[in-house]
């Protein structure tokens, strides 16, 4: 496959769709995808009650379309919530590999971002040594409003994606 032509150009050449219609289709696809991000229900450390409270009744995550789901194959994003120890880092990598494209990673809390209060410990790793992270949400633990703001940043990032699933940078 030629690396210089993008997916858009290839579809355009093959099916002869005019560009304005393709832009509309892309806009609708981006709007639909950004309002339905399903993360894996994967909580590691003490930030997990904040995750539960965000999906609770006062700060509702589901109005943004974010539903924590247990089956790995049908999820879009993995939210690494809490401390990642050395033994758990292998499992995070397995889960990331098992998800289908397009997929995103959000690191919630101070611990996966930069080891948090356990910065000089022999048994913790950062999340971006194991999986490529898209959005970092700091805090120990972060407020539910901060988690929602982080997810909205991820939504903007999805909306700005020129081609679906292609990771830039």
């Amino acid at each position, binding site marked *: 496959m030629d690396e210089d032509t993008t997916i858009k150009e290839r579809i355009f050449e093959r099916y002869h769709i005019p560009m304005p219609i393709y832009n509309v289709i892309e806009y609708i696809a981006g709007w639909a995808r950004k309002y339905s991000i399903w993360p894996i229900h994967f909580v590691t450390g003490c930030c997990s*009650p904040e995750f539960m409270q965000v999906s609770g009744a006062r700060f509702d995550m589901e109005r943004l379309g974010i539903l924590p789901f247990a089956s790995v194959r049908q999820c879009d994003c993995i939210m690494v919530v809490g401390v990642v120890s050395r033994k758990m880092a292998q499992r995070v990598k397995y889960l990331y590999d098992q998800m289908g494209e397009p997929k995103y990673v959000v690191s919630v809390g101070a611990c996966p971002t930069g080891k948090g209060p356990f910065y000089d*410990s022999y048994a913790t790793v950062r999340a971006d040594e194991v999986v490529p992270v898209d959005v970092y949400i700091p805090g120990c633990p972060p407020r539910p*409003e901060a988690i929602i703001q982080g997810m909205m940043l991820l939504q903007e990032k999805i909306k700005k994606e020129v081609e679906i699933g292609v990771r830039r940078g």
Partner: protein
Amino acid sequence: MSDPEITPDVMRVSWGPQHPMSGQTRILIDIDGEKVHKLTADLGFTHRGIEKILENRTFLQGIIPVERMVMVDTANVGLSYVLAIEEALEVETPDRADWIRSMICELCRINSHLYAFGLQVESTGYFPAVFLWTTIDREIILDLLEELSGLVPPDLDIGLEELSIDRQTVRMRVQAKSFQAADRLGLQLAKFGPFASARIGAIEKDPKTGSKRFNVTISLKEPEAGDRG
């Protein structure tokens, strides 16, 4: 991992570390139909090395990692650490401290039980209706604990530029994003006892960035040591 106990009838299932109900433990179940033969526990997924990092912390800094051993019920764990230090240093606490500690620990305990009830009912089927009810009840307790710790909500859009404190007054130079934010600061300050007499000065608007700056002057009647507790 080859094991001589696994026969063709018995299957080893891993109730793995990524599971909403098992927390972070991995339990290997040797199962034959519905009959369980043996359970093996595989732990260590949340091992953070807290005992080792406490060697490099002072006594007061050590509360932070110790409290993070438990997710929800943090006051009871912190209390056991603090009581051990007090016994070693032979420090006596006043009665009022014991009462306040009891109240906080009870609130945290109820917090933890509500969390557990909701998750247990959720694990019998996957519909989290009862979990949402217990979440609402937990919010009441969390609001109480938030008032105690003096946490100001982050949607105030306020930044602190300068702070000067002497025996009689506290002077702050504050920068806010909007006029409503300045009003809300006044309301929030009025809720705390010593800061109820705060006077907010004239608001001037920075022409370059559009942010609003003003002085807040708080006069204290009797200065107390550590009144922000």
